[in-house]
C-alpha cells in the first residue's frame, strides 16, 4: 500500500517536471512564440480562476458571480507594488499581497452575504464585484481611474506561471480531500443535515469563499504582470461569467474538469482568431452543443487520477488476453 503511494508520487513528480521541461524547451525553440505564450499565460490564469471558483461553486455549492472582483484586487495590488518596486522580491511580495488583500475582502464580504442562497447569493456577489470595480474606477489618485495602469513591470514567465498554477491546483485538491474539504462538500449536499452533524455551515462557506478569493487574487496579480496593463473594464461582469463558463463546462465539482476546460477553451479561442468576425458566434455555438450533449460538464464530478490509467491499462491487457 505504502509502496504504491510512493510510486504514485514519483509518477506525479515525473509528469509535472516533464510537462514543465517540454514546454520550456518549446519556448526556447520558439515553437511556442510570443503570441502562443500569451495564450499559455491566459490558460494558466484561467486554470487558477476556474479551480478556485470550483471550490466555491462546485464543491461548497455557493453560486458566486464575484470572481472578477477578487481578481481585480489582486491585479491592482500587485501592479501598484511592482510599479514602485520593480524587482523579483517586489513581484513575489506583490502577488502574495494581492492574494491576501483579495482573501480579506472575500472574508469581509462573505460573512454577511453567505446567509443568502442560490440566485440571491449570485446577485449579491455580482453587486460586490461591481462595487469593487467602481471603487477602482474612482480612486483616480491611486489607480489612474478609467485610463488604467500602464507599463506594469513584466515578471511573469512560464516558470512563475507553472509554479503558481500547480501550487493552486495541489493546495485546492489537497483541501478537498481533507476533513475540512468534506465539510464544505457536505454543505453542498444537504445544508440542514450538515449542520445537524456538527458542521458550522457559515464557517465553512466563509472558509471556501476566502480560499477561493485568495487564489483569484493570485490570478489577478499574474494577469497584471503578464499583460502589463490593467483597467477596471477588464474585470467587469463578463469576466466572472467567463470563469463560470469554464467551471460549468469542465464539470461542477471536478478539478481536472476545470483544468481540461480551461486548456480547451484557451486553444479554441486562439484558433478561432482566424475567423475574427464570427469568432464569438462559433464559441457560443460550441458551448451550446457541449451543454446539450454533456449537461453535467466534460468531467461531471469525476477526477482523472492515476488509477484511471492503471484501470485503462488493465482493460487493455484483458482485451489482448482474449484475442
Amino acid at each position, binding site marked *: 500500500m505504502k509502496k504504491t503511494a510512493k510510486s504514485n508520487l514519483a509518477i506525479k513528480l515525473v509528469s509535472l517536471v516533464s510537462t514543465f521541461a517540454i514546454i520550456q524547451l518549446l519556448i526556447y525553440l520558439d515553437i511556442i512564440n510570443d503570441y502562443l505564450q500569451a495564450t499559455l499565460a491566459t490558460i494558466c490564469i484561467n486554470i487558477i480562476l476556474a479551480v478556485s471558483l470550483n471550490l466555491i461553486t462546485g464543491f461548497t455549492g455557493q453560486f458566486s458571480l464575484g470572481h472578477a472582483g477578487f481578481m481585480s484586487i489582486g491585479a491592482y495590488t500587485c501592479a501598484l507594488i511592482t510599479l514602485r518596486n520593480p524587482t523579483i522580491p517586489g513581484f513575489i511580495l506583490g502577488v502574495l499581497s494581492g492574494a491576501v488583500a483579495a482573501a480579506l475582502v472575500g472574508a469581509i464580504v462573505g460573512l454577511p452575504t453567505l446567509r443568502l442562497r442560490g440566485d440571491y447569493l449570485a446577485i449579491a456577489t455580482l453587486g460586490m464585484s461591481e462595487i469593487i470595480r467602481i471603487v477602482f474606477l474612482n480612486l483616480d489618485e491611486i489607480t489612474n481611474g478609467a485610463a488604467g495602469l500602464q507599463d506594469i513591470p513584466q515578471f511573469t514567465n512560464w516558470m512563475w506561471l507553472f509554479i503558481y498554477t500547480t501550487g493552486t491546483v495541489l*493546495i485546492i485538491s*489537497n*483541501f478537498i*480531500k*481533507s*476533513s*475540512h*474539504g*468534506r*465539510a464544505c*462538500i*457536505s454543505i453542498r*449536499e*444537504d445544508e*440542514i*443535515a*450538515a*449542520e*445537524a*452533524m*456538527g*458542521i*458550522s*455551515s457559515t464557517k465553512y462557506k466563509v*472558509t471556501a469563499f476566502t480560499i477561493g478569493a485568495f487564489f483569484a487574487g493570485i490570478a489577478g496579480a499574474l494577469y497584471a504582470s503578464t499583460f502589463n496593463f490593467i483597467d477596471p473594464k477588464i474585470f467587469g461582469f463578463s469576466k466572472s461569467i467567463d470563469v463560470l463558463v469554464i467551471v460549468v463546462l469542465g464539470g461542477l465539482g471536478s478539478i481536472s474538469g476545470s483544468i481540461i476546460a480551461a486548456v480547451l477553451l484557451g486553444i479554441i479561442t486562439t484558433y478561432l482568431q482566424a475567423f475574427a468576425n464570427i469568432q464569438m458566434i462559433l464559441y457560443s455555438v460550441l458551448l451550446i452543443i457541449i451543454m446539450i450533449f454533456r449537461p453535467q460538464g466534460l468531467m461531471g*464530478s469525476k477526477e482523472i487520477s492515476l488509477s484511471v490509467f492503471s484501470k485503462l491499462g488493465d482493460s487493455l491487457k484483458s482485451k489482448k488476453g482474449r484475442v
Partner: protein
Amino acid sequence: MPILSVKKLTKSFGGLMAVSNVNMEINKGELVGLIGPNGAGKTTVFNLLTGIYEPSSGTVTFDSNGVKKDIQGLKPHAISKIGLARTFQNIRLFKDLTVIDNVRIAMHQNVKYGLISSFLHLPSYSREEALLTEKSLELLKILKLGHKKDELAKNLPYGEQRHLEIARALATKPALLLLDEPAAGMNPAETSQLTELISWIRKEFDLTILLIEHDMSLVMKICERIYVLDYGTVIAEGTPEEIKNNKRVIEAYLGEDLNNAGD
C-alpha cells in the same frame, strides 16, 4: 437525573400553534417514545430540540456531563457538539457521497488538524485521517455496512439508508439520540431487527434515546415511557401499559365516541 428537560416549549408559525406548552423530561439512560397522530407536531419538537427551528418561547435544558446548559436558540451545529444527535424522517443522507464519507463528515467535529495541514497534507493530516477512516469503518461494521463503504449513499437499499443515518448520528458521539421514525417504510422482519439494533446500540454506546414512531409494535416493545402529542400539546405521558388504556389517547387516534360527540 434528567439529561433533557423541556419547559413550556412553544412554536407558532404565523397564527398556527404547531407546538404549545410542551413539558418533557428525559432521564439519563432512558428510552422514551414520542407518538401522536399525523400532524401532531412530533417532528417540529425534534426540529426545536436540535436547533433547526427557534422556539417562540420556552426552554430546553441539556445536561452534558453534569453541566446544565440552555440550548434553545443555539445553532444546530452547536447543539450537535454538546451531544445531541438525530436522524431524519425523510432520509437526509449526503446522497452523492460514499457511505464512509457520510460517516467521516459526521466525525469532523473531533478533527484537530488545521487548514494549513489540510492544504499541504502534513503528517498530522495523514495520522488523523487514518484514525478517522478506521473509526468510521468500525462504526459501519457495527451497523453491517462495512462491505458497502465505497458505495454511494443513494445506491443503498432503503433499509440500509436508514442504518447509515443511524451510523452517521452515532459518529457525532451523542449522549442523547433522537430517532425520527426509524422504522418508516420497513417490513415487519426489518422492524424487528431494527428494534433489536436500537436496544443494542443504546447499551453499547451508553445512550439516552428519544424516538418518534408510528409502528406501535416497536414503540410498545422497547420504550420505557411514552409521551403522546396531539395538536401540538402533550395529552398523555406514562408507561406503554398506561398509554394503551388512556382514554384521551384512544380518542386522539380513533376519534371521539359517536355517542359522546352527539351530546
